[in-house]
């Protein structure tokens, strides 16, 4: 019974995330679209959780929902008379867009099919029984041990980016 419930949960979440993702591109109101994006991100976090990647899930929520989306919505709210804006999100280039989408689906789908997922699926076939190959501890060790140099480089680049943003934004 539990595996069925778990599957139901996963497919439900998947469905909701897809609906929300469609909302992101189709809704005329930017604010609504941004809220749908929050929904999508939360759905993805729920999927991570179902895969027992709790750390990734929580980081997803903390960073994307908590920080990035907040800033996105904040930026939207500061724009000019946002409340009145209902812009149609479709334009005349829907055909090329569909083609591009199709190409993307083929590419990703091909990759998905070609990849060997056997390690992650595990032997039992049930998602709930999979042991996560990485846990927080290993992740931390890897980040501050093996990959400490790239990690530090990335943080330096980020700081440089932040300072650059401040410099660009300041006018005086």
């Amino acid at each position: 019974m539990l595996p069925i419930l778990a599957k139901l949960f996963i497919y439900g979440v998947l469905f909701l995330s897809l609906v929300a993702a469609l909302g992101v591109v189709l809704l005329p109101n930017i604010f609504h679209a941004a809220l749908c994006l929050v929904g999508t991100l939360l759905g993805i976090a729920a999927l991570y959780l179902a895969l027992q990647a709790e750390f990734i899930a929580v980081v997803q929520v903390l960073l994307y929902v908590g920080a990035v989306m907040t800033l996105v919505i904040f930026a939207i709210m500061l724009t000019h008379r946002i409340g009145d804006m209902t812009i149609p999100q479709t334009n005349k280039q829907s055909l090329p867009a569909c083609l591009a989408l199709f190409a993307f689906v083929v590419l990703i789908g091909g990759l998905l099919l070609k990849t060997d997922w056997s390690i992650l699926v595990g032997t039992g076939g049930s998602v709930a029984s999979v042991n996560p190959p990485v846990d927080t501890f290993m992740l931390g060790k890897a980040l501050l041990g093996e990959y400490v140099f790239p990690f530090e480089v990335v943080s330096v680049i980020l700081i440089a980016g932040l300072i650059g943003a401040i410099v660009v934004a300041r006018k005086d």
Partner: protein
Amino acid sequence: MIDEPVLHDTDTLEVNLGPQHPSTHGVFRMNVKLEGETIVSLKPIMGYLHRNHEQIAENMSYLGSMPYTDRLDYFNSMSNNFGYALAVEKLANIEVPERAQYIRVIMAELTRLVNHVSVIGFLLNDLGAFFTPILYAFREREKILDIFEEIAGSRMMCNYLRFGGLKLDLPPSVLDRIKKIVQGFPKFLDEFEGLLTKNEILCMRCQNVGILPYDLAVSASITGPMARASGVNYDIRKIDGYSIYNRLKFRVPLGKVGDVYDRYMIRILEMRQSVWILEQVLKEIPEGPIINPKMAAFAKAPRNFKPPKGEAYGRVEAPKGELGFYLVSDGTPQPWRYHVRAPSFINLTVLEDLCIGHKVADAIIILGSIDIVLGEVDH
């Protein structure tokens, strides 16, 4: 330190603070343009409580306006009565008996305590201290209002002064109760100051916010504690020495910066001076009549009181500033012209100058520190 507002080319947001707003102290409206949260323009809009006070008074016997003056600045009806009585007494050249003078000063100073203590309470409430200071203030205010009720029959709308004296004498034993209040008041002030005066948050919020420079205070004819906080040595009690003030010892506290904090502190220091005045007056109060017998004759027929032709301007140092009544008499029972110099109204005129460049939150406390009562602003 308030930095100069850096203006980016974003949209301004126009917000109407009031007329229904928790902190506009009545039906007052501020049309505020915001740049982020910084105020770039502020337009005070008043008149929601306009009651045609002056015109009504010009169609009424002189005494008939006395209860209306209660309703000008409904926190300080005794001071308003005092100012109006002084103007009429000047107009009709009426002597006031000694005991009445003393009682008037007691009432005026008690009113000042009531007013300042509540203003500070409201100011702190505007700052966000959730009702605690204002309720402590009201606790003390109740004691004084009880005295007013016992003496004049009403807590706030006293209608107690009469031209040439007072309506009634003090009831027995009330002087002892006043003495007890005056004795206990410094203790309360210490508690009240301990609550927030040295509080870092209060200092951060109030210091260097809403600075009123000396020159602007003088040229905008700001009076009362607000002017004194900017260092203007202007206290009608000292300048005119009306009633028995020229015989009393007291000092006038003066601020240096003229910000919200100074206005707060000046009020507290003034309360301490008022306590000093009250102590002196209560010690020296004489026995005697409470109303000029000539005027007592008009009690049953206020309409027969006809001051001679002429004009007079009577002013008092009301808790909010210089409260003046200008009267022109044409010899009839009604004043030909009746004009009120309302301190709240005139002090409010500098609001925009004080607020520009500050945040919305500051505008609220600046308004609170100006100490307005809409009854007086919109008289």
